[in-house]
């Protein structure tokens, strides 16, 4: 059983980690706790649904990939969801957060994110209804791994894609001018500005990367679990836990934080009743803030 819980923990941890990257960058570079970030996962998942539905209606571009439950439409849906969610995030930035940042303190941005979260979540509920939805009704056979661990082929894809995204982001952050500018701004916005970094541009990239990560995480959640309007809302605490565990602003911190959260949640059912599982991320948050407030990978001030 412990191996199965570990496998499940890694899989849900990968989704949490992908989703938490944006939250972590927002906390560090935009300097506020964005309670509406989790709703970007929901919107990403439903943007993916729109694309898959349209593609299926148009003929579906021929079948599924081997043992996987999906074919090309879902791959393209991932791209579409990332782009559409980025546009949504940039819109929110220009209409709301950027204006507030100019005139008020960072806590006003947190209130605003409360309101935005309500708006986004309930808009999904209005448009798509409360019932769970699936991308596909294809039945999959679980693959039996050593140690009697069962995983679905889609879940293997999830893990592989997560690794690809993290490597791509790593290259972006270390090799591209924009990535280096982002890291510089995270370290010290003022120093970055006087060094000629276009901070406004960096902020837009934070939204795009955060929203894209959230969208991919949302689609993967929809693929391996299900689509619900509360999909993102239910992940608020796990996402914050991952971002805080990893230390705000750290790419690997967010991903490893996500894995720790996923593993703790899934392994916790061996010692506490399953019904209390949602409290585990909260306990992790308290523990890390108490013992190491800068996060596992953050630098001490």
């Amino acid at each position: 059983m412990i191996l199965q819980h570990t496998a499940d923990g890694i899989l849900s941890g990968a989704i949490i980690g992908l989703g938490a990257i944006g939250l972590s960058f927002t906390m560090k570079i935009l300097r506020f706790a964005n309670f509406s970030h989790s709703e970007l996962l929901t919107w990403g998942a439903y943007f993916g649904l729109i694309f898959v539905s349209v593609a299926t209606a148009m003929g579906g571009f021929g079948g599924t990939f081997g043992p996987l439950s999906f074919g090309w439409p879902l791959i393209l849906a991932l791209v579409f969801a990332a782009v559409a969610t980025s546009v949504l995030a940039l819109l929110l930035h220009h209409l709301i957060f950027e204006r507030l940042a100019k005139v008020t303190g960072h806590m006003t941005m947190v209130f605003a994110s409360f309101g935005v979260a309500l708006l986004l979540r309930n808009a999904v509920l209005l448009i798509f209804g409360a019932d769970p939805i699936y991308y596909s009704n294809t039945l999959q056979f679980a693959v039996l791994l050593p140690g009697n661990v069962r995983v679905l082929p889609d879940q293997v894809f999830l893990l592989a894609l997560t690794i690809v995204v993290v490597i791509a982001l790593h290259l972006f952050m270390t090799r591209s001018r924009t990535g280096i500018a982002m890291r510089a701004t995270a370290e010290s916005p003022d120093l970055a500005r006087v060094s000629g970094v276009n901070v406004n541009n960096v902020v837009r990239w934070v939204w795009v990367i955060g929203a894209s990560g959230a969208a991919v995480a949302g689609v993967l959640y929809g693929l391996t679990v299900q689509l619900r309007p509360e999909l993102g809302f239910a992940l608020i605490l796990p996402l914050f836990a991952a971002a805080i565990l990893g230390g705000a602003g750290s790419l690997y911190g967010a991903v490893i934080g996500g894995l720790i959260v996923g593993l703790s949640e899934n392994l916790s059912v061996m010692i506490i009743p399953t019904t209390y599982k949602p409290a585990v991320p909260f306990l992790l948050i308290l523990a890390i803030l108490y013992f190491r407030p800068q996060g596992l990978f953050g630098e001490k001030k």
Partner: protein
Amino acid sequence: MIGVISYLIFFLILALTFGIAVMGLNLQWGFTGLFNAGVAGFLAVGGYTHAILTGPARDAVFGGFELPFVVGLLGAMLASGLVAIVVGLVTLRLRDEYLAVATFGIAVSIQLVAVNWEYVTGGTLGLIGIPNPSKGLADGPLRQNAIYLGMVVLVAVLAYVGLQRIVQSPWGRVLKAIREDEVAAASLGKNPTRVRLESFVLGCALMGLSGGLYVGFIGFVGATDFLPIITFQIWTMLIVGGSGNMKGALLGAAVVWGVWTGSGFAISKIVAPEWQAQSGALQAVLIGLILVLTLLMRPKGMIGEDVHVSRHAADTT
């Protein structure tokens, strides 16, 4: 006409009940700068405590002490205050957004306990038959509700007057001093840690009181009564009314609760029955919109902050 009056009474009972929680939040955020995102949790603690203390005895469930209404309310305040002491000791050293995340987590955890600890909370079935004291004092729902409104007004006035005295006292000025500059306050010999905790506990006790009044009126408490959206609603009430001002807190409660119930009523009249299930979503969208627009257009709320200067300082000017 009777219909309008009876609806107005019903509306005012709930608006004032929430208003008490908003005043508690105002003490924490408006005066002390403590970001409590776990309002729903403290309402729940108060609501359940009131139900356990005053409710009827039942098999296989703890509580049912059938104590007087007032004891239930005092117990609700005490229980929320005690939870707040524990929570405060652990989280109040955190800054701003970490405090928000931690208190949000507490509300989620309290709700999990409400759903799962059946022996105390009745689980998903909840606790029923909580006596409403106005039922024994008059005949007919209109008179009974009018009496309950009288009680809520009394409690709200007591809370308002008490809070006004507190925030205008030297202790109240220390709160604002800490909010503005904690280091400066500490250098003047004030103890920020202690004062922050006191403010947090007092605010949470008021939320417990509000939860108790709510459950006493509805006569029932279940795990779905205190969902996270209540926290968002209470925050919207404070921001719309104007934080840092107790009158603003009450006004915001009335306005936002008015929009919530008014829009619910309008939707039930306009929208086709098969779409009614999603009317709650439309109401929530409206609350989110009000919060965001208030922050953008009128960040100080309807009434801005009250300025309190010491009597002694005022004399010298």
